[in-house]
């Protein structure tokens, strides 16, 4: 097999067809699918509609409901925490607000609790699994939605969110998302976020899948990084305390059954810390690293759904976890980057998906679930290609972007993407890139209301770990918005909530009860949850591993 410009020769053959038809394809508009058309392709090809991908959970608040297998596997496992080894009489950190997760939602919550809510910084503690900011929030490329142009309005944004979520969102959450959006952008500008601008000072706003107006605010294709590093820098300047490499592994309740902190686990020294708090904000993000339905993922290393597990153990209910978002344009080639995201902005800027014959087959900006299902369909029909390592996929004709917007557009607007492929000898300004859906976003999660309250008193939640904001499908650019809108609301509400809160005697009894229930139901599992980190060590090494040190 010969490699030409980064691609094996047989894939290059197909690229030739793409090139031959490029001029023609630039002129063709594939119409968007009708509602009926969308439903048809979803039902036939999207993993959400397959029986094999999920099952009923046998215990807990959502007993009897369908949830993705990988998550049920965790919910039906015993806790990783041996409650007997914990001494709850010794409190290591005593704070007003415990924030679990140092990604976007957690850090925004801390800032608002401190700066607006007036909670002293020493009374706030962020604990996080990796480093502060190692999170899905850092990885977003495309951008964040906010209706601020005259042709747009929060009402239209609301309709897009609600319809995009197949009308399964909690309306009050969708409303908060749309209505708070412009103020969030303003807050970012005040922090110093460098959004992409036009010469007249207005934002360069692109369209995203499923949105009816161009309202995607971006910062090159490092949007998430630009937001996260500004927000984190503010938190660092204010010296908000952060415990790194210390994930929370279980929540603490008090004798009233109110959430009152958590047990942190120092992954480097194996010690635990007892953290007592008047209110706890869950902001642990998503679960891509569970590889639900065996998809590769775009998510960061720590996205293992811990928040879902610990909240469920304590009695919170989950919502909409019978769906996940697969992102249509995960990288399918080269092998080294399989699963990593190629941003939707590539399509936003005009690149269109093509099959192995170089023909277009789907409107490029369908909602993500529909677009993904269409890609899978095309591959099932034999119109996709398969890489040397067995990944199926279709083309995304990136060179179109420079033809439409002028030479150099890709290198400036998509600097990160360009660099990524260049590292593997692929020049996306000359050749298309090869993509296939990848597990991207956990649509549902712990159910919240517009104040970010969960079903459990004392526990607030914000960001990707929550359920209800996006219903059964999230649109691009709405989750960066989500973590800001609800992170802010959580911080503000927490600052109020702590004023009247007295914490009773700490307890981990709920964990023992949960484990007992599993025994009663005779549910067996060889894992313990939450898992904290995915297991990627070589199979042969694991097979020979001894547990002696």
């Amino acid at each position, binding site marked *: 097999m010969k490699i030409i410009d980064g691609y094996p020769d047989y894939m290059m053959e197909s690229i030739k067809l793409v090139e031959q038809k490029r001029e023609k394809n630039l002129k063709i508009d594939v119409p*968007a699918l009708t*509602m009926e058309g969308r439903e048809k392709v979803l039902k036939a*090809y999207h*993993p959400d509609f*397959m029986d094999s991908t999920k099952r009923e959970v046998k215990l807990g608040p959502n007993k009897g409901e369908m949830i993705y*297998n990988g998550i049920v596997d965790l919910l039906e496992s015993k806790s990783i925490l041996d409650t007997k080894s914990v001494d709850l009489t010794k409190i290591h950190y005593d704070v007003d607000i415990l924030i679990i997760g140092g990604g976007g939602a957690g850090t925004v919550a801390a800032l608002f609790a401190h700066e607006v809510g007036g909670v002293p910084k020493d009374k706030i503690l962020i604990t996080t699994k*990796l*480093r502060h*900011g*190692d999170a899905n929030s*850092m*990885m977003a490329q495309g951008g964040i939605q906010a209706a601020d142009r*005259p042709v747009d*309005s929060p*009402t*239209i944004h609301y*309709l897009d969110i*609600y*319809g995009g979520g197949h009308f399964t969102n909690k309306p*009050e959450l969708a409303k908060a998302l749309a*209505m708070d959006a*412009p*103020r969030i952008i*303003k807050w970012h*500008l005040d922090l*110093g976020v*460098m959004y992409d*601008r036009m010469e007249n*000072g*207005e934002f360069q706003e692109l369209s995203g899948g499923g*949105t009816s107006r161009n309202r995607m605010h971006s910062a090159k294709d*490092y949007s998430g*990084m*630009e937001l996260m*590093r*500004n927000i984190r*820098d503010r938190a660092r300047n204010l010296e908000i305390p952060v415990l790194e490499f210390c994930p929370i592994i279980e929540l603490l309740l008090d004798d009233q059954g109110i959430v009152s902190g958590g047990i942190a686990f120092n992954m480097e020294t194996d010690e635990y810390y007892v953290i007592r708090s008047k209110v706890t904000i869950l902001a642990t993000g998503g679960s891509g690293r569970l590889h639900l*339905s*065996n998809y*590769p993922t*775009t998510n960061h290393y*720590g996205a293992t759904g811990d928040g879902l597990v610990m909240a469920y153990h304590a009695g919170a209910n989950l919502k909409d976890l019978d769906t996940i978002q697969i992102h249509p344009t995960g990288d*399918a080639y*080269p*092998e080294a980057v399989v699963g*990593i995201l190629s941003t939707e902005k590539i399509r936003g800027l005009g690149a269109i998906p093509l099959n192995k014959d170089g023909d277009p087959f789907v409107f490029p900006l369908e909602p993500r679930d529909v677009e993904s299902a269409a890609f*899978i369909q095309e591959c099932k029909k034999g119109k996709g290609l398969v890489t040397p*390592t*067995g990944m*199926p996929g279709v083309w995304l004709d990136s060179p179109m972007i420079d033809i439409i917007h002028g030479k150099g557009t890709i290198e400036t607007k998509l*600097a*990160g993407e360009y*660099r*990524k492929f260049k590292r*593997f000898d692929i020049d996306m300004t000359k050749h298309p890139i090869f993509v296939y859906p990848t597990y991207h976003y956990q649509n549902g999660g712990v159910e919240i209301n517009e104040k970010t309250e969960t079903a459990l008193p004392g526990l607030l939640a914000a960001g990707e770990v929550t359920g209800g904001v996006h219903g059964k499908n999230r649109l691009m650019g709405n989750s960066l918005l989500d973590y800001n809108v609800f992170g802010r609301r959580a911080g503000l509400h927490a600052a109020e909530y702590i004023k009247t809160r007295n914490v009773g005697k700490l307890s981990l009894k709920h964990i023992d009860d949960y484990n007992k229930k599993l025994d009663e139901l005779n549910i067996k599992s060889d894992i313990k949850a939450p898992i904290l*980190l995915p297991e*990627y060590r*070589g199979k042969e*090494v*694991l097979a020979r591993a001894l547990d002696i040190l």
Partner: protein
Amino acid sequence: MTETDVECAKQDEPSQVTATVEIFIMGKRYDVPIGFTIMKAIEFAGYQYIRSCGCRAGFCGACATVYRKGQEQKLHFALACQCLVEEGMYLVQIPFVPANKALYDINDLAPEDNTILTIYPEIARCVSCNTCTKSCPQDIKVMMYIQNSLRGNIAKAAELSFDCIQCGLCAMRCPADIKHYHVSQLARRLRGKYIDPESKELNARLKELEEGKYMDEVDEMMSMDRDIILNLYKKRKIEAQGDLDEGADA
């Protein structure tokens, strides 16, 4: 694992391990599959990451790696998640960079010629050796953004440094002990906050919202029957499809 409709295996187990290369992780020899990133190769060799692994996609800077190949003179710098293993690599990852950040309140600053120099006076120590640029896995002109910070060109420093993922390799190598990525973070914040122009449209929308506009509209929509809102949704005009072009009604 449950069966799936995807023919592919999950991310970290390529279905074919073809051939291997010999690498040295902190001096110890391992055979790892060709085509693996350094990160996946280290895992394949049996290490489980706690540090030095974050986004796995070139965005977080957690996986800074230094290597030399065989008898080569030059030291190389890379992101473990973005660089393929090559025969004879001697490598180590740098999990943490001790680089103190100055504390400041952005609201108290102004984008003046000497603002950055006042907060990070050590940038005046730069001897223009360009080592920082040569160490940057993002191919950023690091020395030039320090130089622009020094001469008060905040906008340029911000622009040149925009793709910085704060891996810290530059700061580890600089003979003048400059903490480049903190310097450029300040430059970008100054630019975003003070230099880039205002958006009139955003300000207008904020004013409308303050006056309570759209509240009723959205509330009305929230109380609509499903059929009605479904119909509204279907009839949306899509800007990206040109529906708004001929002065069409928003």
